């Protein structure tokens, strides 16, 4: 009878009955972690070896897996936010681009041409005609207005010249002597 083995057996019984303390369990783990375990106790070695290392390993694996899970979750989180930010950026870019684009407004909106009683409103088709019409109409009106302005100016010149002539006659007529009158008219008609 090996007293030490009896002690170990006692601890084993207490362990499986759930009565062992932490120190007693550590004793058992340390005992079965040795290389030279007595033959009659060898059958317990795998069990206590597992309890000593396997559970820890499992916890380690679980911990590592949890950590990996957390990292993966964080990465997914970041990826989600990046995707959201990219979407918002894309929408903003499209909005800004559309705003900066030349507005879809045609200054000829509402224009048309009528040929053989048929009204044609497609601006892409009639644009050339419309441009030509505007050009001709404006040129024609400008021509007439210049003509009117010229006529008004000519008319004003004629009025002024008429008044000048009247004043010359008035001055000349103040002289009774005909020779003197002629000389005065000659002087007044001289170009300076």
């Amino acid at each position, binding site marked *: 009878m090996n007293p030490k083995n009896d002690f170990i057996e006692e601890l084993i019984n207490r362990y499986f009955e759930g009565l062992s303390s932490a120190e007693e369990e550590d004793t058992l783990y340390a005992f079965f972690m040795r290389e030279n375990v007595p033959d009659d106790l060898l059958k317990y070695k795998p069990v206590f070896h597992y309890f000593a290392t396997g559970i820890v390993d499992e916890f380690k694996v679980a911990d590592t897996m949890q950590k990996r899970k957390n990292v993966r979750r964080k990465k997914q989180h970041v990826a989600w936010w990046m995707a959201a930010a990219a979407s918002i950026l894309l929408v903003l870019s499209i909005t800004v681009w559309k705003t900066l684009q030349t*507005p879809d*407004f045609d*200054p*000829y*909106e*509402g*224009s*048309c*041409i*009528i*040929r*053989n*009683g048929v009204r044609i409103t497609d601006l892409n088709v*009639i644009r050339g*005609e*419309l441009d030509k*019409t*505007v050009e*001709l*109409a*404006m040129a*024609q*009106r400008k021509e*007439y*207005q210049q*003509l*009117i302005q010229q006529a008004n100016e000519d008319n004003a010149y004629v009025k002024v010249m008429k008044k000048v002539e009247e004043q010359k006659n008035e001055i000349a007529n103040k002289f009774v002597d005909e020779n003197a009158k002629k000389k005065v008219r000659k002087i007044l008609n001289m170009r300076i």
Partner: protein
Amino acid sequence: MKTKNVFVAVLLLVMGSFSMKIVAQENLAAMVKKCESIESVDMNIVRQKNPHTKKTESIITSVTIRSNPALVSEFLTAFRKDEDNAYQVVENKQGGKIVPSFCQFKGVSYAFTMQGEGNATVTEIREPIK
């Protein structure tokens, strides 16, 4: 009663002056409108809008009459009727006749060009009064 009579008289005067303003170039305007439904007449109606305010700045209507001496004659008659109300009139010799070739009214002008017997072009330019 007296107040009512005075009010009606003033109202009629105001309406009268307003209606006089309308008839200034009504014959010419009516002729241009009439041409829209005549097949032998080509028309170009150009609306020019301000790209910023999108408001119409001018409406140019060009009427081209082909082989229709009656219509040309009607237009000449309309010119004669309305030219007294114009504040600028230009007449010149076209087709052997003295005809009004340009009439300027308030906010609208008409130009007339003959191109042989029965052929003519009439251009109306309307600019909304600001």
